[in-house]
């Protein structure tokens, strides 16, 4: 097998990069951008809705927690469209580093209902809605979540 054969099997991908200020409300821009791309890729409506929710949660987490709502800090959303999947990467600048334990645990409904703050469902929701989810450190040193949603033919 020569090098040309290897190259010919690499997935064709197109990347859209979106840079947003860390202000609540801008997650809607990310939602609409991601859903616009997903619809054009052929995702069904219910999957697009799942994607919008997951993107919203990921960007809100990055704004609120990772960047501590410092509007001078950026949230970078990378949308990578492949023939059979859409990869969404959301990275913040890491003013607050996410505890890895927080990325795997599931909240208990009874505990959450007793708290004044009913938040804390974002990561759980993302894991429920996306086909693959991975929390890593961004090249910039911040928090990064990589989500994959597969395109069913």
């Amino acid at each position, binding site marked *: 097998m020569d090098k040309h054969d290897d190259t010919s099997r690499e997935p064709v991908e197109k990347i859209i*990069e*979106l840079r947003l200020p860390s202000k609540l409300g*801008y997650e809607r*821009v990310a939602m609409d*951008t991601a859903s*616009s791309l997903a619809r054009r890729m052929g995702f069904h409506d219910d999957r697009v809705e799942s994607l919008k929710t997951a993107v919203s949660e990921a960007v809100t987490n990055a704004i609120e927690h990772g960047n501590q709502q410092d509007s001078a800090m950026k949230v970078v959303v990378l949308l990578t469209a492949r023939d059979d999947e859409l990869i969404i990467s959301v990275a913040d600048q890491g003013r607050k580093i996410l505890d890895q334990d927080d990325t795997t645990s599931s909240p208990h409904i009874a505990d959450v209902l007793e708290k004044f703050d009913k938040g804390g469902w974002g990561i759980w929701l993302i894991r429920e809605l996306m086909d693959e989810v991975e929390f890593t450190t961004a090249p910039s040193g911040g928090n990064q979540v990589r989500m994959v949603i597969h395109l069913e033919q």
Partner: protein
Amino acid sequence: MELILPNELGYELIARDAVAAFAWRLGVPIDRIDDLKTALCEACINAIEHGNSLKPDLHVEILCRVEDECLVIEVCDEGVRPFAPKAEPLSIVEKLAGMGSLRGMGLMLISQLCDESGFVSRDDVGNCFRLAFQRHRAASLGCSSNPGSHVSV
């Protein structure tokens, strides 16, 4: 907000939806958002087709910001083909009379839809087209900001 797109026809629709969400968040009236969507698509198609000569490895960058009471959008390409204004562009009537190609009306259309539009100089190589919209007024009364070496179209 910044958006970087692949240089491929069709991606102007993703830009349209992203920037419309941004404009909505800033309080731009819905009828002006419709104008913005059409004008932005035209500017992106110009950048993809002309500025970047449809080369698939290039990118189009879109920058959105608020200047005074205006939403300002800059659509920048990598300048494979620099913009060269025609001395006497044909009018729509002349085009319909068969005196020239029916294409090439994008800049004219944009100028009718925006409060302000034109090419601006930039430090980097490439063409940069600026579109401005009043944030809180439906009527086109112009934007008062100083865009530097602005050339109206």
